[in-house]
């Protein structure tokens, strides 16, 4: 494969980037005792991206054959030329940098290969059955196992020549409890760069199943969370979601250039000085198996640790080679493409808040009246940095003591205001949002995490 790409690139007049990608994925979904979907998928082909007279063109071929790849490169050039007249500002140049050469491996592919499909299916079947057996109040349950094994080759006319192998695995469980017309749900998921051993390093499948069953049943008798502003302690999952969704998207340089809330704020104070917020390709903190681990991005740029907010001050945006040239900074290795037929976009990897020094029990003990919020639901953030996140579990805190479980909590606020209001950051660190994917037209596997933090948010309750 590498030879084919190198040969076509060597004979191309102008800038060309070829990315061959072979993906093999397995997923098993079990719901209420039924395997609703057990599927094996392969997706493979080559994406060709060109820059012609300052205009991007892209095409792809579902093939590794030389003639098909050469045709994709030709079609990309034709697309760029055909769109050239419509573009008002040319891409002046791509930022120079050392591009990746060599082999790059992440994740425990051997562990996944050594486990049979039967074992992986039984894992989901067993966890789902365990949830249903745990209580008469459980009406339905689900369990999902999935894995992605990627091989990529990135070759470009300006020197990228990388072979990348990456393995990611996920497991998630859900429970539905009911009483009369009333139903409650609970969910927990984990996603790693790695194999099954890594997936269940923090909690076993049985422990995850028992947890969601207990929470779904307990929520049936839980009162609704009160709506309005509140002092809250966010757990590492919610801190990771806040870092990714509410801050991370606003500092993606393409969005910054469009006028996001982070535009024009480099060097300015945007958060409490207790906050240092990072997006990193390698997992340089916590477990090395974070779900968004990426050593080389899809432009062939070596990734590293990008400090977005340094002790409260906005320090960097997230860049591809195009935006890095515009801003006059090195690219940060954030250009990512989901499949061979997707063009690279600026995306996050592992986005987190660095831990502080306060023990967790002191953080909770410092709250006279508030909420301890655990587990991230889905989240959305706006151009103006206003965010909204679902919360899996909300617990009352009164006089520093954790009390009863509440239901139906969501939180919202202005991300920069919330970060500015963080007044305690705990010690300890966990990754928490490696399950699922970030969407921006294309999917991307990401992770996020941090310590626990104390701050003020608006709680959407009743």
């Amino acid at each position, binding site marked *: 494969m590498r030879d084919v790409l190198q040969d076509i690139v060597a004979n191309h007049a102008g800038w060309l980037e070829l990315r061959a990608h072979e993906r093999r994925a397995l997923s098993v979904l079990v719901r209420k005792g039924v395997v609703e979907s057990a599927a094996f998928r392969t997706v493979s082909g080559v994406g060709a991206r060109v820059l012609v007279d300052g205009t991007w063109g892209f095409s792809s071929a579902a093939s590794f054959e030389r003639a098909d790849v050469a045709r994709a490169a030709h079609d990309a050039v034709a697309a760029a030329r055909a769109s050239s007249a419509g573009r008002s500002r040319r891409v002046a140049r791509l930022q120079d940098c050392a591009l990746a050469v060599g082999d790059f491996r992440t994740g425990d592919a051997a562990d996944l290969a050594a486990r049979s499909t039967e074992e992986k299916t039984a894992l989901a079947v067993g966890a789902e059955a365990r949830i249903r057996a745990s209580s008469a109040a459980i009406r339905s349950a689900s369990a999902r196992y999935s894995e992605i094994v990627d091989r990529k080759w990135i070759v470009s006319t300006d020197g990228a020549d990388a072979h990348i192998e990456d393995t990611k695995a996920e497991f998630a469980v859900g429970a539905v409890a009911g009483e009369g017309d009333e139903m409650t749900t609970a969910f927990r998921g984990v996603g790693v760069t790695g194999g099954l051993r890594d997936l269940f390093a923090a909690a076993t499948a049985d422990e995850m199943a028992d947890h969601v069953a207990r929470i779904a049943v307990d929520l049936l008798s839980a009162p609704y969370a009160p709506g309005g502003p509140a002092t809250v302690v966010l757990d590492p999952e919610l801190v990771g979601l806040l870092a990714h969704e509410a801050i991370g998207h606003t500092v993606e340089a393409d969005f910054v250039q469009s006028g996001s809330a982070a535009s024009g704020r480099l060097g300015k104070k945007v958060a409490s000085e207790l906050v240092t917020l990072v997006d990193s390709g390698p997992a340089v903190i916590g477990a090395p198996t974070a779900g968004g681990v990426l050593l080389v991005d899809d432009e062939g740029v070596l990734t590293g640790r990008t400090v977005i907010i340094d002790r409260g001050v906005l320090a960097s945006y997230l860049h591809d080679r195009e935006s890095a040239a515009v801003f006059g900074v090195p690219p940060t290795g954030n250009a990512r493409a989901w499949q061979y037929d997707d063009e690279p976009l600026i995306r996050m990897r592992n986005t987190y808040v660095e831990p502080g020094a306060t023990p967790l029990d002191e953080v909770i003990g410092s709250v006279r009246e508030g909420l301890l919020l655990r587990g991230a*639901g889905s989240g959305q953030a706006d151009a103006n940095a206003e965010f909204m996140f679902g919360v899996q579990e909300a617990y009352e805190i009164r006089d520093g003591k954790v009390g009863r479980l509440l239901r139906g909590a969501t939180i919202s606020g202005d991300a920069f205001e919330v970060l500015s209001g963080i007044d305690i950051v705990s010690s300890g660190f966990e990754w928490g949002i490696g399950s699922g994917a970030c969407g921006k037209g294309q999917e991307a596997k990401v992770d996020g995490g941090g310590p626990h933090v104390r701050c003020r948010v608006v709680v959407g309750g009743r």
Partner: protein
Amino acid sequence: MAGNERDLIEICDAAVALARRSGADGAEACASRGGAVDVVLQKNDVHLAKSSEAGAVGVRVFRSGRMGFAFSNRLDAPSVAESVRAALGIAAASPPDPHNGLPEPLPVSYQDGLYDAAARAFGVEAAVESALVMLRAARGYDARVMVDAGEFSARWGERAVVNSRGVRAHEPASAFQCAILGMARDGDVVSSFDYQSDGARGGAGVDPAAVALRFAENVVGSLGAVKGESFSGPVLLAPKAAAHVVCYPIEAAASARSVQKGTSRFCGRLGQMVASEELTLADDPALPGGLASISFDREGVPPEALPIVERGALRHLLYDSYAARVDGRASNGRAGGGPAHVPHVSPTNVVMGEGRATVAEMIAGVDRGVLVTRFSGNVDPVSGDFSGVVKGGRLIRSGKLAEPLCGTMIAGNAFDLLGRILAVSRERERMPGAVLGHVLVEDVVVSAG
């Protein structure tokens, strides 16, 4: 059958035959093939032009009640054979289920208008011009409008489904789609995001300028937003918000699979009132130009038009062939998904019945309320609990639209809300796969931060 189906049908035939020879009791192949041109907008400019052609085949096999599925994006014989082998391997690892199986063949009435030959002839230049129409309309409306991203695409292709019980269905289809998202920025003041899109089977059905103007009006209108007031009262859900808070929970609860699993609030409610008499919601697979219009579903079953909720009463559940076997009845053709997915219950085009009041009359009747243009939040389709932020919101005061809102949340239970629908608008808006109106509901909890 319609169109030049030979090649794709032959690929599916070969997959099914190989699966049977390899020991499958039953097999199904679903394949597609086509091409597209896309022009992507970014940072207020044309960003990238793409052209592509692709194929896909998904093979589902059954053996002793066990089901397996495999997918490949390559249609060549070795790739299809590998998918057959992989699907049989998955089936061997899966537990048996007496309801697993395939539908019987039914005559398919092929719809006109699903394929516009202009899509195949649509070049990058034409797509650039359509994308520029959007960009110019949005930026021309107000210089403060920022187009973060957008896209105009023309797609053409064909799909086929073959199964070992005799289903053989094939049809060509095309789609023209446009989307635009971004915000308005006035100095340091940034508005809420807005996202607008449109899509149709034929090029004439899409109006990129109208989409861009709707987007521009929304983002400029939400500049200078202020935090609202906390109260419980009427909320006017614009079509996008209604899709999220009203239609999505109905679609989920009307899935026969959800009812069978006991995770639907519509369990045992067929024929009963589940909403106010103001609401009618239908599933129309033959909506002219509709992006979800189809002649046969993912399993090759022809879908019929169905009222889901008719003047507040639950009339029909949505069935694929699995759910139909569980209930001992026929599928009504609601198996969704493409070749990459195991079929699952899914509606086609969701169409809200025309209401009796205009939007202006609905606003005029509200003394103190909130207009929700977009809902950014969570709706639990099982419990119906919803909570989220009002986007592009406006306060309604004394029958008139007042200041734009930020930092304002709404919360409640979507199924309880259905009974408190006061009115549905006469005007309806087409979105990809849906035609929806404004919905006015009473007694919604509004929280301002």
